[in-house]
């Protein structure tokens, strides 16, 4: 228990924890001391002097935002002296303020307005000249109006303390003090929007919504972000049919009010003019034509039924995006399994997350994290492997930064990035120990870690006696391997040692590990690592895979993959099947379903006749060499539920307009297994419908009614069927490691693939293509949706190949030049830019613009999990042209769906 202190505020006694600030103590008894510079997230700076209070026995007024309570302290917040002090600070601020409230977007939610109103100043004594700044702006997305600035430095402090970006500074002195970014070009930062949100006045605002609203005109919907698996709570502010802006609120949600560029500036795809608004059907002329739901649904149901009758249910397959709600995902698999009768179904969790989910289930009996974000913040060692955390999972990135910067955690990184000071934060700059791992080599690095556990004598003695066979066989397998070539052996051993020595440690793994050959084995090997250290079952310890899409965890748990029933439970598990059959009053098929790549093969072979694809675009997601398009073209029937006419939708016979998350009710399950509400901010755009509703109607027409009044009814069923959803608390409850499962793994389970897990793997193929190219997430884009968001396109509107400046210099390449990349499967020409964080010899390309590379990657499916690996490749680089077109401004309007 924390030590408590009793103080008296305005005559009221209150007991608070030692170390509490007076301003917070006051807030707890409902006394709101006016303040500008104070923010609970930031270290006190006490610069605005607005929060002055009287403290008995202190001669001067004290700033309540920086004064810590002390036993017996007597504070007065409402004496004439205090009142007068508050008024005087307002008077000083208002002296130079332009009083342009009528045209300020902050008007109506501005602290300066509110406090001025509270202290009702009547006219100012200030009759001299106001200071006026020249009109300035930060970037096409962020407006600054320094005349309104109260110099509280919250923006500067946020950008430094929370973001670790340090893009803003206060420059000049006295009344000319001004918030600036590095000069000479527009603001170049992470565009988290934090400065916009934390500014107490209208000095920093979003240009995306400028002059579009008065706060009281907007409707607000508390919902969950649809981009990544971090699961941020956000507020959609809408007016009529349009999302005007996105906000978050301090202290709220897993993100505690922080957001990233995608969350804050990436909402406009919802209102993109290319959204599908009516069903489309391919007609005799070979083109897609608009029809009504009433026209399309019966015909479609009929077609599906016909195919099922003619070729059997196994001739029909389904694929769904893990960006859909749990309700969509659940109903999708139920529809496939019961209404159609097929186990051939998959979701985009197949692109990597299943590798982790399978490993976790196998060893610890649960696919879920055994830790939460709080455990990340409280850990004293964090090990990041292939996460690119700031780009792919920015809010988890903030938790890592908080652990390191605020609590002094030791950060250990096995990442492709290397430390370098740039305009955006770089998590490896905070590393205590960093091992630079080239693309595709993370699996080898993980094997090196396990070897190091033995070489450094870190193995738990209790485990050795309890599971001697396991330990000695892993030892034999892991230590037989040499340390991976090209990786820093000493550093790798030091990482293992530092991690083993921690009080609480969390391993975070991401796409660079999970979406590369050996992804599944690596996840199991890391669980070996935790077991060997004796930590897997310790509280606060765990392996935490991060998910790229917002609901990959949900997709697995809803059973929206071939191998899993809701739970997830194995399709092959008869008992699980019987159980679900009890709830469904019908038997799901027992056959082993096909995963995505197998379905494409079957389509190509002519055994799969129809596919229902919900919200996913495999033609784009998979490389050309996967030949997804030609496979889908061979189907007798392709149905696509979508927001946009994607490459895949263009091949469809029937295209059904679906609602975006901004129009949906339901739930998402984030990376850490926390189930959160999705609430609509908008009415469905056009005639679009929620995915579950489309499937439900179809089932009715097919004579197998899966009828639900609303999404909530589906959730009710989910909660009855899936144990992890029974209790939906306000806070995540980390899962427990199942002792039985660990026991089973330690005695037998580990052995089944031991040689495969500890073999050197296919060494990087020696060929003439010497560059290692990685395709991955960037800060500003995720998937294809983000490329329809105007705000994000302003930040990044094309894919540029990123290389190390030293490499570029060697090749005589300047920013904006174009290079030809050649791989064994093809070639592509792309513009280049430079970043010091990309190590020499390595190249990076943003995944959201992968069509530019379409011909380049080859694809290797994982032999066990069917995950298609196509994100790391080897290429040659030749310069083909200089500068020009590519580096110009983004096109004024973005053509969608093409």
């Amino acid at each position, binding site marked *: 228990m924390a030590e408590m202190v009793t103080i008296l505020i305005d005559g009221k006694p209150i007991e608070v924890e030692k170390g509490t600030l007076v301003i917070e103590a006051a807030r707890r008894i409902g006394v709101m001391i006016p303040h500008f510079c104070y923010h609970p997230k930031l270290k006190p700076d006490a610069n605005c002097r607005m929060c002055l209070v009287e403290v008995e026995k202190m001669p001067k007024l004290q700033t309540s935002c920086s004064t810590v309570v002390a036993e017996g302290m007597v504070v007065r917040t409402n004496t004439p002296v205090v009142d007068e002090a508050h008024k*005087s600070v307002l*008077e000083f601020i208002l002296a130079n303020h332009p009083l342009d409230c009528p045209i300020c977007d902050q008007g109506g939610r501005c602290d300066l307005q509110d406090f001025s109103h509270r202290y009702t100043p009547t006219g100012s004594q200030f009759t001299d000249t106001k200071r006026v700044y020249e009109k300035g702006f930060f970037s096409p997305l962020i407006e600054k109006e320094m005349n309104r600035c109260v110099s509280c430095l919250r923006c500067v402090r946020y950008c430094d303390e929370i973001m670790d970006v340090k893009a803003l500074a206060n420059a000049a002195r006295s*009344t000319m003090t001004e918030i600036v970014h590095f000069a000479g070009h527009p603001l170049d930062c992470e565009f988290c929007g934090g400065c916009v949100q934390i500014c107490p006045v209208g000095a920093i605002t979003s240009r995306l919504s400028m002059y579009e609203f008065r706060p009281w005109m907007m409707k607000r919907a508390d919902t969950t972000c649809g981009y990544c698996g971090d699961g941020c709570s956000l507020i959609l502010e809408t007016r009529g049919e349009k999302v005007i802006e996105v906000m978050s609120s301090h202290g709220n949600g897993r993100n505690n009010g922080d957001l990233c560029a995608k969350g804050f500036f990436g909402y406009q795809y919802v209102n993109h003019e290319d959204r599908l608004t009516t069903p489309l059907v391919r007609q005799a002329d070979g083109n897609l034509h608009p029809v009504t739901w009433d026209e399309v649904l019966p015909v479609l149901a009929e077609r599906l039924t016909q195919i099922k009758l003619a070729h059997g249910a196994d001739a029909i397959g389904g694929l769904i995006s893990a960006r859909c709600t749990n309700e969509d995902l659940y109903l999708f698999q139920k529809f496939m399994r019961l209404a159609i009768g097929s186990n051939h179904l998959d979701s985009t969790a197949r692109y990597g997350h299943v590798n982790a989910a399978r490993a976790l289930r196998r060893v610890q009996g649960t696919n879920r994290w055994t830790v939460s974000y709080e455990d990340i913040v409280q850990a004293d060692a964090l090990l990041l492997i292939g996460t690119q955390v700031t780009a792919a999972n920015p809010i988890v990135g903030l938790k890592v930064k908080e652990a390191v910067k605020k609590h002094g955690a030791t950060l250990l990184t096995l990442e492709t990035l290397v430390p370098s000071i740039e305009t955006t934060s770089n998590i490896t700059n905070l590393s205590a120990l960093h091992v630079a791992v080239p693309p595709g080599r993370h699996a080898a690095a993980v094997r090196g870690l396990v070897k190091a556990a033995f070489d450094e004598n870190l193995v738990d003695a209790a485990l050795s006696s309890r599971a001697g066979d396991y330990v000695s066989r892993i030892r034999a397998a892991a230590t037989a391997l040499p340390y991976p070539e090209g990786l820093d052996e000493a550093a790798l051993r030091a990482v293992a040692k530092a991690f083993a020595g921690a009080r609480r440690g969390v391993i975070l793994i991401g796409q660079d590990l999970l979406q590369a050959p050996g992804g599944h084995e690596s996840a199991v090997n890391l669980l070996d690592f935790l077991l060997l250290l004796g930590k897997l079952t310790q509280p606060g310890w765990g392996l935490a895979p991060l998910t790229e899409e917002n609901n990959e965890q949900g997709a697995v748990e809803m059973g929206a993959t071939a191998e899993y029933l809701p739970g997830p439970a194995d399709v092959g598990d008869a008992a699980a099947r019987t159980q679900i059959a009890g709830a469904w009053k019908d038997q799901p098929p027992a056959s082993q379903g096909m995963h995505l790549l197998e379905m494409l093969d079957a389509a190509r072979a002519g055994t799969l006749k129809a596919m229902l694809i919900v919200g996913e675009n495999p033609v784009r997601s998979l490389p050309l060499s996967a030949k997804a398009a030609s496979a889908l073209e061979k189907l007798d029937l392709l149905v696509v539920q979508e927001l946009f006419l994607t490459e895949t939708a263009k091949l469809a016979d029937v295209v059904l307009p679906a609602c975006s998350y901004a129009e949906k009710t339901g739930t998402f399950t984030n990376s850490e297994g926390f189930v959160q509400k999705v609430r609509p901010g908008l009415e469905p755009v056009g005639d679009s419908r929620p995915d579950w509703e489309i499937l439900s109607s179809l089932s009715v027409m097919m004579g197998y009614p899966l009828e639900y009044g609303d999404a909530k009814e589906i959730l009710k069923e989910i909660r009855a069927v899936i144990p992890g959803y029974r209790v939906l608390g306000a806070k995540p409850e980390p899962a427990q490691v199942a002792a039985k499962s660990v026991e089973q793994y330690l005695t037998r389970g580990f052995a089944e693939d031991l040689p495969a897990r500890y073999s050197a793997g296919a060494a990087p193929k020696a060929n003439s293509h010497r560059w290692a190219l990685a395709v991955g997430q960037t800060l500003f884009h995720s998937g294809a949706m983000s490329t329809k968001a105007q705000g994000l396109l302003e930040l990044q509107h094309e894919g540029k190949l990123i290389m190390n400046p030293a490499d570029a210099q060697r090749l005589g390449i300047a920013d904006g030049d174009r290079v030809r990349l050649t791989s064994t499967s093809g070639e592509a020409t792309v513009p280049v830019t430079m970043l010091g964080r990309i190590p020499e010899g390595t190249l990076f390309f943003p995944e959201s613009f992968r069509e530019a590379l379409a011909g380049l990657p080859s694809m290797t499916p994982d032999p066990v999990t069917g995950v298609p690996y196509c994100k790391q490749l080897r290429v040659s680089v030749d310069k083909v042209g200089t500068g020009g077109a590519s580096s110009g401004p983004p096109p004024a309007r973005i053509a969608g769906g093409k």
Partner: protein
Amino acid sequence: MATHELLLLKNMSQPGYSGSLADYERAGGYQALKKVLGKIPPGDITEMVKKSGLRGRGGAGFPTGVKWSFIPKDHPGPRYLICNADESEPGTFKDRQLMERDPHQMIEGMIIAAYAIGVRTSYIYIRGEFVLGARVLERALAEAYQAGYLGKDILGTGFALDLYVHRGAGAYICGEETALLESLEGKRGLPRIKPPFPATHGLFQKPTVVNNVETLANVPHIVNRGAEWFASIGNPPKSSGTRVFCMSGHVKRPGNYEVPMGVTFREIIYDIAGGMRGDKPLKAFIPGGASAAFLMPEHLDVKLDFESVAQAGSMLGSGGITVMEEGTCMVWAAENLLHFFNHESCGKCTPCREGSSWLLQILRRIDHGKGKMEDLATLTRLCGNIAGRTVCAFGDAEIAPITSTLQYFRDEYEAHIREQRCPFRSQPAPELISVGR
């Protein structure tokens, strides 16, 4: 007046004294260090300085030995000693001379101080404009390293100290100790909120002592001749030792003069600095740098020590005495000072940031014949709203010229307003020039 012994300016007043190590050693330099290292326990040095009654010469006059004793004894990890050589207070120019002309005196003081508080890394934060001073110090440090007074194993005693010169980048506020620390850490020099104090959370959040150049230059003398001896100089017990006063303004012989504390303003202005230039009557004077309130001819017999000047309503501050003769426009003098303070307000806290320019605008208006009687009440009110409500002491400093001129020369303000012109000038006031932004 009685002649007195020079301490700090002694060496440099010898003809031909160059400030080189050889000269300094010849004059008895580094004997104190030899007396101390390995022979006197560090804690005893601190005690000795406490007993000597030495108080800080940077402005606030905090007892130096007491400051040293605040450094936690058993703190693991580094701790720092910083010499504050940012001297930017208008009318103050003693540190500059002490550094340029006798650098080793201060360096020896720093080494002893570092020894006393267990410091192994120390910095001299020198005002950016002091190019010569920085060069002289660099040269002196090189000599000291060469001679084994600095480095890994000083004088074979195992005590190690590294000393660095760090040049400031041109801001008055960086003389304020916490802003100095920020600047030294490579950040924008803005004062920190206190607590925590530098003694526990200083440079890089480590225990730190910040001392003025002159303060440190006294240390070898105390060691050489004993705490009792030092405590007998000046006006003990509260104001022992000498001070180097910087005489400027309308006196015949402006310059630095070292005198024991306790001499009167009359002595220093009329005897030591040669009296009023042109023999005009004295109108007013600033006793301790621009941050100190004006004093009047009636204060001429006030003693130059911490207590007496404080009692007279001002402060001994940095030791900069600026003298003004009859005929000087006090509104213009206040405006001139405010011009400086407005230019140098770091902009961190509201009352000082917004107040300084508001005050300046009013003063300028009054001086330019556009004042209103209500302005006087506004000036008073604004000063009251700044006093004691800012992050650092700058706020109190910037209002001192206004409150004191309003106290003593209210009639002059009123005359400006009544006549809508400056009664002292036939020409418009010259524009005050700012260097940089």
